[in-house]
């Protein structure tokens, strides 16, 4: 009997919901200045608790009722596009990248142009104008960028394997090859079987997404997505260095120094072969160092040190360091005109965002709640031990709430105090290495520019080269095939993209 009652209740609820949406569909109610609606991705297994401590504290600190629609991170891009085409648009939207869908809408006037407005808000007036420019659409700022440390690239390797084989940490790409070869062929785990790979690369093919391929190509000097050659910007993949880098990667793949299923290997399993002793190195952002150390620590709290080693970017064959930085931001918070209609409402929303970027809220979003899940020790946030149900809940929630943080005036929250002296030492070393590499960073000179042709068909175009790159590495096509694909990129509209990007570049020089 109970199920029947339940289904009846569900039917009634659905009917009620349908009626409600039907009423709301026509004309959105006048904006209530006490409430702000937002949309953001969540990174945990579940969206954060909407009545949790973090939410309460956030509303208390900002003085607003904050309604957040959480969408899973994996499908967030789809969700953004679909939301933009719907009638239920939030007042503040986290936009993860300048996707063609976003740019098209922005240029049609869907979002407020904030170029001249942000400087009026003390917490939104950025101290990183270059990053703000990178995040703009040809100089027009359509959102408050979410700042990220630009230098994050690291090579992580099994320190115990390296020590066992008597090798040194790699400094150049040749060193990387030597280490990968030794990890593969010299039985670093000492089990007498030839069952290890040097490096793991997951299925991660798209161009310009900070993938291991992008990183290695930049180390070789191919530039970061775009590069200046003879006073003109060209795509990185049209340089000789790009081919040279891919030849280098292919050599490692052919010699089985890289996992052979790199084209299908799921990136969520990236840590596994490293931890299980199947593979010895990973090229990715340096925060993975901490994740790997915790894995070893969880498995054996008495013997986890010196399992994970790392270095920053590697020197290319020319002996120079071309370090790979990101554009310094990870998407932005945009304000749709459909939901924020007047300048007065915009001011209201901007002052809310200004509060969101104040030191207090920044600490809440990134560190959590003081004395609940962390305490301040020597200017660092130390997690409370032992964990309580409350502290766990807050720690889980801020994984997602931190997505709302913008940090356009650099990080004002506390750095996290690491759990042990060893981990603190590694963390400090990471900070140092990245700061050092930042001096040699080679940025994307076209980061701020969006060409109309690229908006129309850029992603399909890029796919031609991205797929060809993987095919070449897997041995399905030869180097001529890769070159042909790059030619095809040119003739199918790429030439026009290059022309438009150069025009924008010259205009903004």
């Amino acid at each position, binding site marked *: 009997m109970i199920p029947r009652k339940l289904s009846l209740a569900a039917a009634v609820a659905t009917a009620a919901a349908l009626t409600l949406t039907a009423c709301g569909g026509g004309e959105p109610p006048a904006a209530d200045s006490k409430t702000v609606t937002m949309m953001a991705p969540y990174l945990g297994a579940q969206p954060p608790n909407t009545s949790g401590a973090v939410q309460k504290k956030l509303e208390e600190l900002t003085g607003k009722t904050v309604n957040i629609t959480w969408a899973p991170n994996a499908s967030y*891009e*789809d969700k953004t*596009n*679909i939301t*933009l*085409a719907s009638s239920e648009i939030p007042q503040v939207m986290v936009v993860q990248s300048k*996707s*063609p*869908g*976003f740019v*098209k*809408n922005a240029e*049609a*006037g*869907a979002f407020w142009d904030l170029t001249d407005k942000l400087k009026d808000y003390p917490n939104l007036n950025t101290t990183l104008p270059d990053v703000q420019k990178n995040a703009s659409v040809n100089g027009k700022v359509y959102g408050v960028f979410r700042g990220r440390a630009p230098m994050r690239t690291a090579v992580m390797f099994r320190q115990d394997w390296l020590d066992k084989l008597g090798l040194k940490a790699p400094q150049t790409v040749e060193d990387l090859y030597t280490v990968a070869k030794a990890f593969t062929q010299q039985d670093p785990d000492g089990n007498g079987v030839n069952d290890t790979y040097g490096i793991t690369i997951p*299925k991660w*093919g798209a161009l310009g997404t900070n993938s291991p391929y992008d990183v290695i190509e930049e180390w070789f000097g191919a530039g970061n997505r775009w590069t200046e050659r003879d006073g003109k910007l060209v795509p990185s993949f049209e340089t000789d260095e790009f081919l040279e880098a891919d030849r280098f990667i292919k050599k490692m793949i052919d010699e089985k120094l890289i996992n*052979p*299923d790199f*084209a*299908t290997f799921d990136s969520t399993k990236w840590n596994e072969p490293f931890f299980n002793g199947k593979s010895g190195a990973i090229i990715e952002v340096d925060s993975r160092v901490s994740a790997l150390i915790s894995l070893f620590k969880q498995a054996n709290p008495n013997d986890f040190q010196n399992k994970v080693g790392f270095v920053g970017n590697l020197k290319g064959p020319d002996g120079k360091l071309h370090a790979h930085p990101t554009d310094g931001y990870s998407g932005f918070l945009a304000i*749709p*005109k*459909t939901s924020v209609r007047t300048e007065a409402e915009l001011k209201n929303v901007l002052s809310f965002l200004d509060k969101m970027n104040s030191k207090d809220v920044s600490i809440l979003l990134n560190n959590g709640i003081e004395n609940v899940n962390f305490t301040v020790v020597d200017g660092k946030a130390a997690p409370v031990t032992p964990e309580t149900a409350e502290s766990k809940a807050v720690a889980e929630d801020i994984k997602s709430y931190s997505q709302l943080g913008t940090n356009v005036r650099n990080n004002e929250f506390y750095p996290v105090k690491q759990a042990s002296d060893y981990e603190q030492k590694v963390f400090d070393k990471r900070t140092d290495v990245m700061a050092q590499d930042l001096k040699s960073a080679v940025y994307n000179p076209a980061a701020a520019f969006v060409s109309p042709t690229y908006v*129309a068909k850029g*992603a*399909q175009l890029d796919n031609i080269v*991205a*797929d060809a790159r*993987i*095919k070449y590495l*897997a041995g*399905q096509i030869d180097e001529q095939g890769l070159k042909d694909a790059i030619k*095809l990129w040119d003739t*199918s509209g790429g030439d026009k993209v290059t022309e438009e990007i150069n025009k924008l570049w010259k205009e903004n020089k």
Partner: protein
Amino acid sequence: MSQLTDALTSKTATGNGAGAEPGTGKHGRSPGKKPGKAPKIPQGRFSVHFAHYKWLYLLLLPGVIYFAVFRYAPMYGVSIAFKDYVPFLGVNGSQWVGFQHFEDFFSNPDFPRLLGNTLILAALSLLVAFPLTIILALLLNEVRLSILKRTVQTLVYIPHFLSWTIVASLSFLLFALDIGPLFQFINGLLGTHIDILSGPNWFRPLIVLQDIWKNTGWGTIIFLAALSTVDQDQYEAAIIDGAGRFRRVWHITLPGIRSTIIVMLILAIGQMLNTGFEQIYLMTNALNRSVADVFDTYVYFVGITQGAYSYSTAVGLFKSVVGIVLIFGTNWLAKRFNQSGLF
């Protein structure tokens, strides 16, 4: 239910009879049940007819509303295939561009590849998976031990209830390079190195195999139902005439379910271009994309992930038009060969 059938039968009877014998057919029935009702509405024939069957029409109403609201109203959105749709401007605010998106699509180098991939995959599933369903149903039908038949039937249904995500994960586990058990088995057997998951030549066989594994058992349901209606007397007569099992299947069973096969075939052909987005999307990677991209995955990739709604709507619309042509074509062919078509 039986009342409804009665009413429906009488509807056709009246419709036919009205011309031949005006009045009699109707008045023979109506005055008895509701005296005086029909004479009160002496207007046109339709209103008489309508008044008489108003309760039946009322029963029809929810269905009509459902289709009008949820099936026909959304077709308004198809108009964005002929516009340069920008969500912010809305369907009405966006500019008309005529057949621009269709022209772009047909002149795109992707077009022949997509069409080829879609048709080949569809043809494979039609030629391999569809007959297998019938063969399995025939085999099951020959099993005399009822408990065995039921058990096998239930077992072959089970894969149908697994999602494509699970099927794809299973395939990845079984065929994973170097470590998958089936990978090791096949390569041990052949002594060569075959990468089934990313080799472009293996994509189509893999998709068809997955499809067979997952759906063949389920597909037998309708054929088994049809098989149960075949006249048992004919078998007895055939046995007396000395027909073996194969003869009986060939001359009695198959003709007995012929019309079901035709109807299922027409339906399958209508669905031909719907190549199963999920399955293909999950099995696609950079190395096999050249044979894997079909209309459905392309529409998702271009439309949803890149926000090119108009273009992908045009692609989807093209696919639907081809689907309709195929349905009508097969139906027409079926009728030409004196079979009962779908409509």
